[in-house]
């Protein structure tokens, strides 16, 4: 963790004007990730995790207001002009979305999209770019890559499209790959294959990666560090093994408990989190999770806990009554 950060997100907030008032999608988030590291950002729909990734990529909706700094490889992306940003994205900073059709052009062949990216960013000639494209498709596990170059996205299955999107994202050897729910739309066996593929390519390229997901199961064995988000804020952050062993934030615990366990007997009631996330257009008094929290006390409803260091290194959480303490007093 002492290595210089490749990406550091410093006090980033994102505000979106809506007909119902200002929506604070991301609230004062600080994060850092070193070269070759994997960070998992976990949270439910509407927690701000996707908006945070858009803020890092400088791909926010036009009306959104960003504050704070996003430093990537020595540059502040919030101050970079449109042209240098465009060059950076795709080359050093790549992204894979949940729906591969977000990044694939439906009217262009797989080949022209890959070749174009390589020519644009790396200034390859057509023959070199074609050869490299075939290599990339083979690397992401696409059978008969030469033939695939001539196909259009609609001729491929969802899993194959996601492989193509990953091939394009990896094509210019990025330093950081942001994978935003890369497997949520895919079936279980395909999900495992895609996550394996990302892990393998990451090791091979010594690339840093941010995996954004709602599933703690996805980050458990595949990340170095995890940040849990709730209502726009990071509420707990720790190296992955530490987080799972010593989680402090009741929300993290509840999120983990709500996952059906494969070794539990059928018809075991799931410890569901009651209620639902708060309306982000309304101001929140106190801890945003307090209305759903089984450990909440009166102070939780009045004061907002800050993300603070635990008594041991590398672990931060935002809670007045962390789980361990609650267990002792209970």
């Amino acid at each position, binding site marked *: 963790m002492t290595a210089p950060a490749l990406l550091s997100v410093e006090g980033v907030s994102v505000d979106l004007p809506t007909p119902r008032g200002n929506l604070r999608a991301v609230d004062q988030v600080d994060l850092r990730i070193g070269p070759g590291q994997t960070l998992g950002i976990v949270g*439910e*729909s509407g927690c701000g995790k996707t908006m945070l990734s858009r803020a890092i990529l400088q791909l926010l909706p036009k009306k959104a207001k960003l504050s704070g700094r996003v430093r990537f490889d020595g540059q502040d992306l919030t101050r970079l002009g449109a042209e240098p940003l465009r060059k950076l994205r795709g080359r050093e900073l790549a992204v894979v979305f949940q729906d591969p059709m977000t990044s694939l052009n439906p009217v262009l062949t797989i080949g022209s999209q890959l070749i174009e990216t390589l020519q644009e960013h790396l200034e390859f000639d057509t023959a070199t770019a074609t050869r490299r494209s075939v290599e990339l498709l083979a690397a992401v*596990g696409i059978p008969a890559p030469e033939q695939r170059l001539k196909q259009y996205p609609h001729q491929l*299955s*969802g*899993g*194959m499209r996601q492989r193509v999107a990953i091939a394009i994202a990896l094509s210019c050897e990025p330093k950081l790959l942001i994978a935003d729910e890369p497997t949520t739309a895919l*079936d*279980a*066996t*395909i*999900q*495992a*294959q895609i*996550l*394996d593929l990302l*892990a*393998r390519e990451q090791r091979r390229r010594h690339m840093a990666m941010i995996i954004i997901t*709602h*599933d*703690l*199961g*996805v980050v*458990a*064995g*595949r990340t170095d560090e995890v940040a849990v988000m709730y209502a726009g804020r990071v509420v707990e952050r720790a190296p*992955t*093994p530490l987080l*799972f062993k010593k989680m402090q934030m009741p929300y993290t615990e*509840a*999120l*983990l408990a*709500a*996952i*059906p*366990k*494969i*070794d*539990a*007997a*059928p*018809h*075991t*009631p*799931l*410890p*569901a*989190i*009651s209620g*639902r996330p708060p309306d982000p257009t309304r101001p929140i008094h106190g801890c945003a999770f307090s209305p759903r929290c089984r450990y909440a006390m009166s102070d939780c409803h009045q004061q907002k806990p800050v993300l603070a260091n635990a008594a041991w290194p590398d672990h931060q959480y935002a809670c007045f009554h962390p789980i361990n303490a609650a267990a002792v007093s209970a």
Partner: protein
Amino acid sequence: MMHDTMKSALREPLLKVENLVVEYSVGGKTVHAVSGVSLEVALGETLGLVGESGCGKSTLGRAVLQLRRPASGRVVFDGHDLVAMHGDTLRQMRRRVQLIFQDPIASLNPRRRIGDIVAEPLVIAGVKARAERERRVREVLSAVGLDPDLVMARLPNEFSGGQCQRISIARALILNPEFIICDEPVSALDVSIRAQILNLLEEMKSRYGLTLLFIAHDLAVVKAVSDRVAVMYLGRLCEVGPSEQLFARPAHPYTALLIEAIPHPDPDVRPSESVPIGEPPSPISPPSGCRFRTRCPRADQRCADEVPELVAIAPGQLVACHHPLAE
């Protein structure tokens, strides 16, 4: 447990699907969506039906209700073959079997009030008395954990996905059905909301004495609610068995693959990288013999030549494989 199994074996199942074949054409080509599936669901039981997209599990669910007419086979519900039924008689039977869909928001008419959406099946069933309808609507809305006074006059867009799924469940319950087909009821929902809806389905099942066919692609979700699980691959059943037994000792290599692919929320469990590359082939031209053979590490010539039949491998457990995993 043995006692229960014997009891249900003696009793006629509430739903019996026999050798069901469903095919449809897309662009002049025949899609072999369901190719000879037989299964039974006992009264009061939950049968989980699991498989990946395109395996035909949703088509099977719709074919049970005759929303898609099968090419051949029988669907016997409480002794009546639905395939042979038409018009009013079929409509009468359909009241006893309801369907809950994956996308809770898209399955509700956005321009109608919640009270009217939930009451609609009653209107169609000919319940004329408005007071009676309102009484029933209030009853089912309360049962699914919604406050009738707060929700009845509102429109679907004012509700979250989880709340819309509660409304769909209320609508499915209003005619007092005996059987509910749940088609991926929680796959569009967040983890915390998913647990709420799964618990609600279990609660409704015991409260109203329901029998469920629970269709999903997520094995862990299926196991959480099912007494028995049927695993489907490319239009055919691979394996059927009691949930715990199937997970503890899968006999079909595909079942084992699905179990292995479940991500463990535990950093000490390293994800295995043994999941083979490959995807299900197209149901337009399924492989000969065993349909899983193109992805199966155990496949040999026999798998290409002969279609494996579902045969008993352990009490209550059936497998369609020439080389089942045995330990």
